[in-house]
C-alpha cells in the first residue's frame, strides 16, 4: 500500500507540476499579444484561445496533485478536533460515497464528450484561427483518471491511518511562504488546540 501511495503521489505531482508551467507560457504569450497589439498594431488571432486552453489544462491536470497534498478546501473546524483515527474512518466512508461517483462520472461523461469532438476534429469557434480544441476536451478524461488513481491512494492512506492511528507523512513538496515561516509555531495553526487556548492559556510554547 505504501508503495502504491508513493507511486500515485509521484505520478500526480509529475503531471501537476509539468502542466503548472503553462502559467509561465500563458504569461509570456499574453504579454506578447499585448505588446504586438499596441506596439505593432498586429494583434494575434490565437492568444485568446490559447489563454483559456492553458488555464483549463493547468487546473484540471493539477486536481490530483492538489488532492495528494491535501490542498482542496474543506470545512475543517470540527474535523480538526477529532483523533486522527476518527478522521480516517469518516473520510474512508466519504471517499466511497462522495468522491468516486463524481470522478468516475467525469471520466465516463468526458469520454463521450471528447470522442464526439475527436470525430470531427473540432476547432474553437471563438476566433478565426481555427485553434483545435479536441485535445483540450480530452483533458477532462485525463484529469478524471488521475483523480481516480489518486483517490485510491487516499483510501489507502485512510486504511493505514486506521491501523496505525496517525496519518502517514506527506511527500516533500513546495509550501506556502507562511507555512515555511510558521514551522516553529505550526501548533498554533491547528485551530482546534487554539480554541482551547483562548479559554485556558497554556504554558508558553518553546
Amino acid at each position, binding site marked *: 500500500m505504501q508503495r502504491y501511495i508513493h507511486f500515485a503521489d509521484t505520478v500526480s505531482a509529475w503531471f501537476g507540476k509539468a502542466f503548472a508551467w503553462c502559467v509561465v507560457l500563458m504569461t*509570456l504569450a499574453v504579454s506578447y499579444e499585448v505588446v504586438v497589439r499596441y506596439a505593432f498594431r498586429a494583434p494575434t488571432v490565437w492568444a485568446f484561445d490559447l489563454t483559456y486552453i492553458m488555464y483549463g489544462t493547468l487546473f484540471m491536470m493539477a486536481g490530483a496533485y492538489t488532492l495528494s497534498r491535501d490542498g482542496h478546501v474543506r470545512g475543517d473546524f470540527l474535523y480538526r478536533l477529532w483523533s486522527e483515527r476518527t478522521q480516517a474512518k469518516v473520510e474512508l466512508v466519504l471517499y466511497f460515497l462522495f468522491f468516486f461517483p463524481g470522478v468516475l462520472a467525469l471520466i465516463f461523461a468526458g469520454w463521450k*464528450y471528447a470522442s464526439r469532438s475527436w470525430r470531427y476534429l473540432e476547432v474553437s469557434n471563438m476566433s478565426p484561427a481555427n485553434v483545435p480544441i479536441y485535445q483540450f476536451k480530452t483533458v477532462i478524461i485525463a484529469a478524471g483518471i488521475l483523480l481516480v488513481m489518486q483517490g485510491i491512494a487516499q483510501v489507502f492512506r485512510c486504511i493505514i491511518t486506521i491501523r496505525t492511528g496517525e496519518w502517514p507523512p506527506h511527500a516533500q513538496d513546495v509550501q506556502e*511562504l507562511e507555512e515555511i515561516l510558521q514551522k516553529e509555531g505550526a501548533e498554533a495553526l491547528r485551530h482546534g488546540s487554539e480554541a482551547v487556548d483562548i479559554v485556558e492559556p497554556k504554558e508558553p510554547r518553546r
Partner: protein
Amino acid sequence: MTDPQVAVAMLGIFIFIILLGFPIAFTLMAMGIIFGYYAYFDADRMWMPYTRALQQDADTFTLIQNYIGGFFNNRVFDLFVNQTYSVMANDVLTAVPLFLFMGYVVERANIVDRLFQTLSVTTRRLPGSMAVAALITCALFATATGIVGAVVTLMGLLAFPAMLKARYDTSLAAGVICAGGTLGILIPPSIMLIVYAATSGVSIVRLYAGALLPGFLLAGMYLVYVVIRAMLQPQLAPKPEKLGDDVTVFQVIWMLLTSFFPLAFLIVAVLGAILFGFATPSEAAAIGALGGLLLAMAYRALTWKRLQESVYLTVKTTAMVCWLFVGSWVFASVFSYLGGEHLVSEFVQGLDLTPLQFLLLAQLIIFLLGWPLEWSEIIIIFVPIFLPLLPMFDIDPLFFGILIALNLQTSFLTPPMAMSAYYLKGIAPPHVRLTQIFAGSLPYVGMVFLAMIILYNVPAIIYYLPQLVYGR
C-alpha cells in the same frame, strides 16, 4: 417527496458533509451527479435503444448491451461535462492563475522589508509612526500579492517584533498587521472579485472600478483610527527614541524610489490597464506577472528555485479554486432543476422583507458563514443562493458584491477561523496571547461594519468610478 423537497434535502446533506470536513469540491460534484441522476431519470428516454432493439428482435448480446447502456443514458452526464467545460473555457477565470502567479512572484521578491523600513523612516514624525508604516506596507503588499497568509506572516516577523521592541501596545500592533494584511482580498486587483465576477456575471472591470474607492475608504479609516488612537493614548505607541534626524530628504526620496514606487507603479499599471480598457483583466494580470518577474530580477531575488516554487504554488491554488467552481456549477444546476432555487425565492418572498431587511439578513448570514468558512467557499457556494433573489429586492449585484467583499474582511478576523490572527500567533513571540490579537482586531471588525453602513447610505462611493469611466 416532491422535487423541491429533494432539493432541500440535497442542501441539508451537503451542509452536513461540509461539517464532516470532506473536500468540498468533490462533495459538490458527487452530490450533483447522484441527485442529478435522480432528477434527470427518464426511463423511456434512457432505454429507448433497448426498446427499439427489442422491437427489431435483435440478438441477446445487443439486448444486454443496450439494457446496460440505458443506465448511462442519463442526461446528467451531459450536464456534468458541459458545466466542467464551461469552467475550463471561462474567460474571466483565466485571470486567476495569472494574478496568483504575480502574487507569488512578488511575495518572494524580498521587497517587504525594504518597503517597511522606507515607510517607517518616511512617516517617523506621525503619531504611531511604526503602526502607520506597518499598515501602509500591509495594504500595498497585500494589494500586490493578494495572499493574506503570506502578508500577515511576513509582516508579523518583520514589523511586529520591531513594534514590540519600540514598546508599542501588543494588541494595537497585532490589530494593524491582521487587518492590514486582509485588505488584499478587497482592494483590486483582487482574486476574490474575479471569483465573484465569475459567479455573478457582473463585469469584472466594473467590479474593480467599484471596489477601488471603498477599498481606499476602509484603508483610510484604519489609518485615521491608528493615528487618533496614538494621539489620544501616546503610551500605546511611544515615539521612537531616535527620530532618525540624520536621514536627509534626498535619502528618503531615494529609498521611496527604490522600494515604494516600483511596487506602487506595478499595481497602478495593472489596474489602470484594466480600468481604462487597454487590456482585459487576464492580459493585465499577465503583464503584472511579467512585471513581478522583472521586479524580482531587479531586487536580485529571482532564483530558479523561487520561480519553481511560485509556479507550483500557483497551480495548487488555482486547482483548489477552479475545482470548487466545477463542483459548485454542477451542484447548482441540479439544485435549481429540482426547483430548489424557486423554493428558496418563494420562502424569502413569504418572509415579506423590505430590501433593507433582506440586505441586512443576507450580510448577516455571510458574516456568520465567515466564522467557520473561508471566502472561496462562501463566494462560490453560498453567494449563488442569494444572487437570484437580488432582482426581487431591486438590489444591484455590483453593490451587493462590494458589500460582500467588505464583509468577508471580518472572516479573517473573527474566531473560530480567524486566519489572520492564527498566522500572527504562529510566528509571534510566545508571550503574545491569542486573546490580545483578537482584542486588537476587534476595532477593525467594527470599522468594516461602519464602512458598510457608510456605503449603504452613500452608494456614490461605489458608483462614482464606474460611472466616470464607463458612463453607467
